[in-house]
Each structure stands twice: as structure tokens, then as C-alpha cells.
């Protein structure tokens, strides 16, 4: 076996092993080391994805296929695969998990073992979604992601947590119905749910004939994954779920789950149904509506985490625009935005955790002038805001630029204009947030507030450096991708 075999298998094996260790140990020991276990899993995942990313060109592979546990002898049944796209998202999973643990060290002090078990299940589900090669397996892992998310949100049994979780559960069931029905329709026509077979079927020209059930399948699949991604008008569960969960869990949900469960699914669909303009147009319209409606709703909120959650809706819109634009450039823009959004959403939720730990509230009308009291939090928050708004030279600028360029070059000029224009909305709701929280006069009750210490502070510093460094080094990354022939 080659090195790449071991490394790639680890995406599925490591979470299972961590779950086993976590449960086989006595409760007493497990409580103490559980966070380190997650941290180790996150680091391993980051290392594995980076190593794989650079091993792919070494083995001259476009896509690395492999199997696990069963049907090993049958060469036709290599039903797992990784490519550069999924590796980038796998990297993001590891990254966000790591930040989540850094925050959890401050915010979670009971039910640590359950948190770790569920977190590992969640990661197992997300990793699985990224490496499968057929729609049904994708659906199975999607359910794993969904169910572990419900429980994570409701883990601490707070009233709002249970409510948020319930809403998510209802909307997810709806999504499951959509996806499952859609799969059934597609299966009726194609006879298989393998990505390759569906692509072949569409390319062979059947897609253009009037096969209403096939189209119905597409519509339902798009609706299902759009629900999972939180795009408007399927977004209604998202703010409740993300706001009511513990911050360490909100980071995961907002930072990566919606993207893997939703946006990645839509990326797969757009690639499978390539050449059907209706799919692209649907994604573009949904993306535009998401950007504007998400931003308008964020403008009206007073809760720090709720604003950030609505901002996720708005930013998912940008990713959909990138996916909908089609072509390598659009996809690259979407994936880069997934990574950038992960960094700045992590930063903002770290800020939320820091603010909640130090002031006890997240109502932005209560705060003010905290920049002086918490300089690291304030600085990282402003950086995240600038990055989200797409101000050069921060990282967010580049991904938005790629998306707008892709839209322009693929002749979706109206959407490009809207995407550019709605950056104003992003800037406006974040400016409001920043102004109310970090600038102005400090209320008397926060006279003695101090900067947060420990892992959250380190997370903030680390993320700020990443946002600036990625922004500055992004042209180099583009050159590298060009050298690898991806662009």
C-alpha cells in the first residue's frame, strides 16, 4: 500500500477510533482528556488533508479512489474518492473543529464526553459526505450529520436550545423528504445513483428531453440541499438553531456544517446536472435572494450571535452564486469563500464567546466601547468584518472577487452587479454591530471588563493572522493553482 492509502483512510477511521477511546476509558479520565482527543483528531485531519493535497500531483492523480472494509477484491467497486475540491473542504472541517475545541475549553464544562462523541459522529458524517461517490451514500451521511447536529444543539437542554433543535429537526425532515423523493425520481430514470452514471445519463442527451420526473427530482434535490445550507427561503431554522446552541457548537454549525451538508451537496448537483441552465439559474436566483434577505434580516437583529447567523445566510448566497456561475473559476471562488467564511465566522463566534464570557450578555444594545477593554477581541472582530465585507487586502476580498469575475465571464452580468452592490449590505450590518459593541462609550457596568485569556484569545490571534496572511498571499496561491493546472 502507498502512503496516500493510509492517509486517506484516516478521514473515516480516526473519528471512529476517537469515539472508541472516549467511551472505553473511565468517565473520570475521559473528562480530562476528551478535548485533547478532539484536538488531536482535528490536527490529524488538517495534516492528512494537506498531505493528500500535495500527494495528489505527486502520484499524478486527478482523483484518488479507494475502498474500505468491504468488496476489497472487486476493482469496480471503489466507492470512495477524494479530489482537490473535497480535500480543501476536509481541511476546513479540521480547521473549524480545532477552533471549536479551543472555544469549548472555555464554554463547556459538563457533558464533555457526550460533546466529544457527538462531535466525532458529526465529523465522521461530514467526512463521509465528502468522500462518497454516489448520491445515496451522500444522503446516508447527510442524515448522520443532521442527527448529530440536532443532539448537539439540544445537548444542554436549555429551553431555547430545545426549540432551536426542534425547528431544525422539522425543517431537516422536510429536507430529507425532498432529497429522498428526489433520489427516487432520479433513480427511476437513471437506474443508478453513482455520480458517474448520472453524469453520463445527462451528457448522453436524455437530460434535454422532456422527462418531467427527472426535473422534479432535480428540483426536490436542490430544495433539500438548499434547506440544509440555509439559503432563503429555506433559512428559517438557521438563526434559531445557531443562536441557541453553545458557541462552540455554533462555530461548527455556521462555520462548516451548512457548507458541507448544503453547499457541497449543491456543488455535487451542479456538476452532475452540468449543462442544464435551469439549475444554474435557480442557484443564482436563490443566491441573490439569500444575500439580500439575509443581510436585511441581520440588520434588524440585536443579538450578537443571531446577527452572525443571519450573516451566514447572506454569505451562503455568495457561495451559491459561485456555484451557479459554473466553470472552474466559479467553483474555485465558491470553495475559497467556504474557507474564508469558515475563518471569519470562527473569528466572530470566538468574539461572541469572549464577549459572553466577560460580560455575560450578547445583546449588542447593552454593549459599547469594548474595543478599549478587549483590544484583541476588538481587533480580530474588525478584521473579520473587513474580510467579510470584501475589503482588500483581507482574505474575503479575493473570494468575492473570484465569484464576481466568474459571474461576469459567464455572462451573468446582472448577478455580478448585484453581488458587488450587496457588499454594501454586508458592510452595513457589520458596521452596525461593530459600532454598537466595540466603539462609542463604555457603559458603567462594563468599567472593569478585561480581555479574555487562554485558548479563545489564542484562537482570535491565530484567526486574525490567517485572515491577513491569506489575503496577502492569495495571489501566490492562485499562481500555485495555475501551475497545477487547476485554474
Amino acid at each position, binding site marked *: 500500500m502507498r502512503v496516500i492509502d493510509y492517509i486517506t483512510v484516516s478521514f473515516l477511521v480516526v473519528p471512529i477510533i476517537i469515539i472508541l477511546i472516549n467511551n472505553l476509558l473511565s468517565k473520570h479520565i475521559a473528562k480530562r482528556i476528551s478535548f485533547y482527543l478532539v484536538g488531536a483528531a482535528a490536527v490529524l485531519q488538517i495534516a492528512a488533508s494537506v498531505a493528500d493535497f500535495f500527494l495528489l500531483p505527486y502520484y499524478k492523480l486527478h482523483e484518488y479512489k479507494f475502498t474500505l472494509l468491504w468488496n476489497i477484491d472487486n476493482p469496480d467497486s471503489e466507492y470512495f474518492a477524494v479530489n482537490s475540491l473535497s480535500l480543501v473542504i476536509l481541511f476546513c472541517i479540521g480547521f473549524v473543529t480545532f477552533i471549536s475545541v479551543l472555544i469549548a475549553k472555555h464554554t463547556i464544562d459538563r457533558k464533555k464526553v457526550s460533546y466529544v462523541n457527538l462531535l466525532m459522529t458529526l465529523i465522521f458524517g461530514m467526512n463521509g459526505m465528502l468522500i462518497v461517490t454516489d448520491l445515496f451514500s451522500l444522503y446516508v451521511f447527510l442524515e448522520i450529520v443532521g442527527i448529530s447536529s440536532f443532539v448537539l444543539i439540544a445537548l444542554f437542554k436549555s429551553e431555547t436550545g430545545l426549540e432551536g433543535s426542534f425547528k431544525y429537526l*422539522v425543517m431537516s425532515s422536510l429536507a430529507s423528504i425532498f432529497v429522498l423523493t428526489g433520489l427516487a425520481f432520479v433513480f427511476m430514470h437513471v437506474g443508478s445513483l453513482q455520480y458517474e452514471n448520472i453524469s453520463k445519463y445527462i451528457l448522453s442527451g436524455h437530460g434535454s428531453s422532456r422527462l418531467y420526473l427527472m426535473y422534479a427530482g432535480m428540483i426536490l434535490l436542490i430544495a433539500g440541499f438548499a434547506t440544509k445550507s440555509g439559503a432563503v427561503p*429555506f433559512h428559517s431554522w438557521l*438563526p434559531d438553531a445557531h443562536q441557541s446552541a453553545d458557541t462552540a457548537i455554533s462555530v461548527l454549525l455556521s462555520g462548516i456544517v451548512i457548507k458541507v451538508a448544503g453547499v457541497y451537496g449543491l456543488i455535487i448537483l451542479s456538476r452532475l446536472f452540468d449543462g442544464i441552465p435551469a439549475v444554474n439559474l*435557480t442557484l443564482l436566483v436563490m443566491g441573490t435572494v439569500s444575500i439580500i434577505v439575509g443581510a436585511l434580516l441581520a440588520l434588524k437583529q440585536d443579538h450578537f450571535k443571531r446577527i452572525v447567523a443571519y450573516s451566514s445566510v447572506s454569505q451562503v448566497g455568495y457561495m451559491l452564486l459561485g456555484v451557479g456561475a459554473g466553470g472552474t473559476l466559479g467553483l474555485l471562488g465558491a470553495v475559497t469563500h467556504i474557507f474564508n467564511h469558515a475563518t471569519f465566522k470562527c473569528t466572530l463566534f470566538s468574539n461572541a464567546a469572549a464577549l459572553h464570557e466577560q460580560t455575560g450578555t450578547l445583546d449588542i444594545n447593552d454593549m459599547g466601547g469594548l474595543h478599549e477593554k478587549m483590544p484583541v477581541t476588538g481587533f480580530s472582530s474588525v478584521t473579520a468584518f473587513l474580510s467579510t465585507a470584501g475589503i482588500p487586502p483581507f482574505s474575503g476580498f479575493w473570494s468575492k472577487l473570484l465569484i464576481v469575475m466568474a459571474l461576469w465571464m459567464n455572462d451573468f452580468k446582472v448577478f455580478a452587479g448585484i453581488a458587488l452592490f450587496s457588499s454594501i449590505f454586508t458592510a452595513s450590518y457589520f458596521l452596525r454591530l461593530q459600532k454598537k459593541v466595540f466603539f462609542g462609550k463604555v457603559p458603567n457596568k462594563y468599567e472593569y471588563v478585561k480581555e479574555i485569556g487562554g485558548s479563545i484569545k489564542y484562537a482570535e490571534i491565530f484567526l486574525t493572522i490567517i485572515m491577513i496572511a491569506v489575503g496577502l498571499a492569495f495571489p501566490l496561491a492562485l499562481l500555485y493553482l495555475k501551475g497545477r493546472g487547476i485554474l
Partner: protein
Amino acid sequence: MFSYDMFNTLMDSISSFLSHGANIILFMIVLPLIWGIIGWLLKKNYLLQLAVVVLSSTINILFALSLYLSKGFYVTFPFASSGLDIAFNIYKFSALFLMFIAIGFFLVTLYGTAFLRNEKHAGIFLLYMYISLAILNGAILSDNLGVMLFFWEGLLCTLFGMLVTNNEQKPRAAVKALVLSGTADLLLMLGIIITVYRAGTPFISQMGKLSITGVSTVGFMCMMLGAIGKAGCMPFHSWIPVAAGDAPVPFMVAFPGAIEKLLGIYLAVRIVIDIYDFRSGSISSIVIMVIGTLTIIFAVAMALIQKDMKRLLSYHAISQVGYMVLGIGTALPIGIIGGLFHMLNNAIYKSCLFMTAGSIEKQTGTTDLKKVGGLGKRMPITMICFMISGFAIAGLPPFNGFFSKELIFDAALESHLIFYLGALLGAFMTAVSFLKMGRAAFSGPLKFPENSPGKLASGKNGFHESNISVRESDIGMLLPMVIMAFLSIIFGIINTLPLDKLLGSALGYNKTYSGWPHSMLLVVVSFIILGLALLDHIYGYRKTGSAINAADHIHYAPLLKNIYNAAEKQWFDPYNHLMYVVNGFSTFCTLVERSISWVYDYGAVKIVEGAGNLLHRLNNGSLSRYLFAAVAGVAGIVVIFLVVLL
């Protein structure tokens, strides 16, 4: 021994050194800046500043002289794109102006340093002067019109800076100068754009001669107005009298007296001989001549009634530009060389006149003719310098002003009688006003204000009431004055030197214009005019009994009185009319801006807020509504699919 050959070898080596690489930029432009910074850092250290001025000016004169004596060369420095190349063209004409500037700069700066001795602004004055020198050198050397414009605008900055440093609280003159000179520069910029567009190249040496037709007429007029506007011609003049009240004398000597005229007239001549095919008798020629004649008459008429030396001189500074513009506007070789010669002479005697006014101000604390008088006994050298320059400006032989004026009269008469008559009227009033000013300041009983600074100057032997006196200025101020007055005589008596040796050869004229004016008739008429001026002065003196009011009978003559009243209320000041237009425009812009702001501040906010509220109310937490929204979403996707597929 030092011989002529050695001198030649030295000049050759300097000029070949300058022609290599970027040396010309370093030594003609960067070096003055460095000198300026050194002078600035010296602040109030008079002797060291004097040393810096003498040393730097000597070096600068040597450089300019070597360039003038060299065969000339062309250097380019590639820059961003081909149209922006910095190109320097060193040939006879430009090098000659470099030399004038180098010598003029030396005298003016020397005077200024002495005048501002131990004063707060001495350092910053030097800095601005040296920056101006660098800019002037750059503007004169540039072959690229765009690069020249860059330097040209730089002079506006130093002009503004100098006016502001002296009057930081209420920079009235500075703002006025900025607006008017800025308008002239804007016209120049427009003209340059049109010219470059028509010629297809920004380099003057490649332009050939553009004919003045169609759009080119606009380009020519804009460039010409910009150039003569810089020189202080109407209608860009009205800041100069204001500055005379606010700014220190060294500024007046330097800027309106010498620098701006040198640069403005230099460009005007370049335009008419190098860039455009400017012909005598054409419409544009007549327009330029009308501007020149009007400037002569109106400015000198205003000068006539002034009771303050600096203001009076500042109006003369404007009126003399009129002669140059008239001369150049004739488009005849005799007119052009006359205009240039007059520019040179004017720089000499006008600087000298401002310097004498400065000396009087330094000693008595004022230049108001009502408060001073009879200073000739106390300040004899100043008086002699004033007389020489006064005779020169009035056009009395054998001083330099006479010869240049006769050339311009000759050219004007050749164009049309009316211009000649206008110029004669100007000459008459010039003579009258200088008779008045000279007699009021220097003859009669001694009088000066009680609080003259002369008291302090003489205070080093202990403070005694008996020491309150006005005396001759010190050597640093006298020397430039004397040199200027001496030059006035030299350029008059040996007028072949400036006319044929310098200007004529630089312009490439074969004909000689030097010597006694060839038309005896013109000379006789000029003498009659001067005689009339003397008679008028004597009449006015007899009538009012004092020299200062000798011109009042003209001031209060019927009809003229009303015009003067209007002028004193600044009805003729183009600045005020410009300001009406500007204010109207800004009111309009404010309205537009307000309404746009309203859209941003209220309109857009209300729309966004309304949309936000609506959406907020729709998301009320009811699950059934959320499910309905999801189903509606699916329906929406169906609609999109149907639209695309059908």
C-alpha cells in the same frame, strides 16, 4: 594665471558633466531643493544663510552659464509610458533664461535674506525660494509640455505657501492668488491638452508649427492666456495689489517682480515661435494685443491714484506686462524681441523699485506716501537707485526701459495706430505716477512715523531719543539694488549686449535691433509725451501744493471720477465676478449634494428599514409559516425551471 581658455575649458567640462545621465536633474533641480532645506534648517542664522545664498547662487550661475555656452543637448529619461518621458531640451533660448533666472535669483534672494534678517520667516522664505528655483529650472528645461505643466503648477504651490506663511490668520491674498493663478493654470492645462492632441506629441521640439485654425485656436488662446496670466496680465491680475498690502517686500520682488514674468513671458514666446504658427494681423494676434493694451491702460490708471508705494508699484507690475504682451502679440520679430527685452528690463528695474520700497519700509515701518517724505537726504543711495529705475520705467534715455519701449512702440504702430496710442497713454501715466511717487518720498521736508523701526536699528549704541533716525540700509540690501540699477544703465547704454548678443542670437534673428531707435519720429513723440507728463505734474503740484496729490486732478476729473470710484469698489475686479459664478455654482452643487444625501440618509435607509421590518415580521417563529415558506420556495424553483424549459 586664469585665462579665457581656462574658463572655456571649465565651462565645457561642467556642461558635459551635466549632460551625462541624470546629472542635470540632480544638479539643476534636486540640488536647489537641498540648498533650500539647508537654508530652512538655519532658521535665523543670518551670516550662515548669507553664505548659503552666495555659494549656492554662484554654483547655480556657473551651471547656467556653462549650459548657455555649450552647444546644447537633449536628454530624455524614460518614465512610466512613452508620453510621460521627462525630456530636457538645452539650447540657446532656454539656457539664456536659465542664466537670467540664476542671476535674478541671486540678487532677489540676497535682498530677501538681508530684509528678513533675524526674522521668524527667514528660513521658510529661503526654502520656498529654492523650491521655486528648482521648479523654474525644471519648467524652463522641460521639452515635454506635460512635465512642464507639472513644474508650472508647482510654482503655484510655492506662491500660495509664501503668501500664507506671512498671513496665516487671514490668507486673503493667498486665496485670491490661488484662485486667479489657478484659473490661469487651468486654462493652460486645457490648452496643453488641445495642443498635444492636435500635434500628436507632447514634445515641443517635435511639434513643428501648428496652424491656428478651428480647435487649435482654442488651444492657442488657452495656452497663451495661461502664460500671460502667470505673468500677471489682466484679467488674472487682481491678487497682486492685495498681496502688496499683505506680503513682505522680498516676496513682491521675487514673484510679481521677476519670477512670474520670466516664466510667463518665456512660455508665451515659446508658444508663438515654437509651437504655433502665429501670424501678424490674424484675429488671435489682435485679441492678444487688445488684452495687452487694456492691461497697460487700466493698470497704470489705477497706479496713478495709489498713495502707497507697494500698491502703486504692484499696479505698475501689472501694467508693464501689458507692454510685453502687446509686443509679443504683434507677432512681428521687432515686437517679440521688444517684448522679451522689456521683460528683462522690467525684471531689473521693477525688482529695484520694489527693493527701494522695501528699504524705506525697513527703515520707517511704512510705505504709505502720506506718512513719509524727504528721505533723500537720509537714504541717498536708495534714492539714486530709485531715480535710475524710475527713469528706466518711465522710458527716459539712456536707461534700458527707453529702448525696449521704443521697440514695442515701433511694432505697435506697424500693427495699428490705436495700439500705439494706447501704449503712449500708458507711458504718459507711468511717467506722471513716478514723478509723483519719487517727489513725495524723497524730496521736501523729512518726515516719518514716530514708531519707525529705524529707532531699533540704530539702537546698538544705547537707546537715546536723539538716535531716532532713519538711515541708509545695510549692505545686503543695498548691493542687489545697486547692481540692478547698474544693470539698468548698462542695458541701456550698451543695449547691443542684451538685444543682439543675448536675445537676438538666441532667437536666431539676423537683423540687429540695437543702437538708437531708427525711427526719429517715434523718439520725438516719446519725448513730447514725457514733457507733457512733467507739465502735468507741475500743474498738479501747483494746484494742490503737495507732490503726493499731484495726480488728483486726473483722479477727480469729471467722468473719470466715477470710473475710479467704481474701480475702488472693485467692480472691475474679475476675482469678484469669478467668485459670484463660483458661489452660484457651489450653491447649485450644494442643492444637488443635499438631495443626493437625502436619498442616502433618508430614502435608502427607509427602504432598507421597511424591507427589514417586513421580513422580520414574516419570520415570527411560527413553524407552520416556515414550512409554508419552504414549500413556496420549491414552487419558486419549479417556476424558474418552467420558465427556462418552456
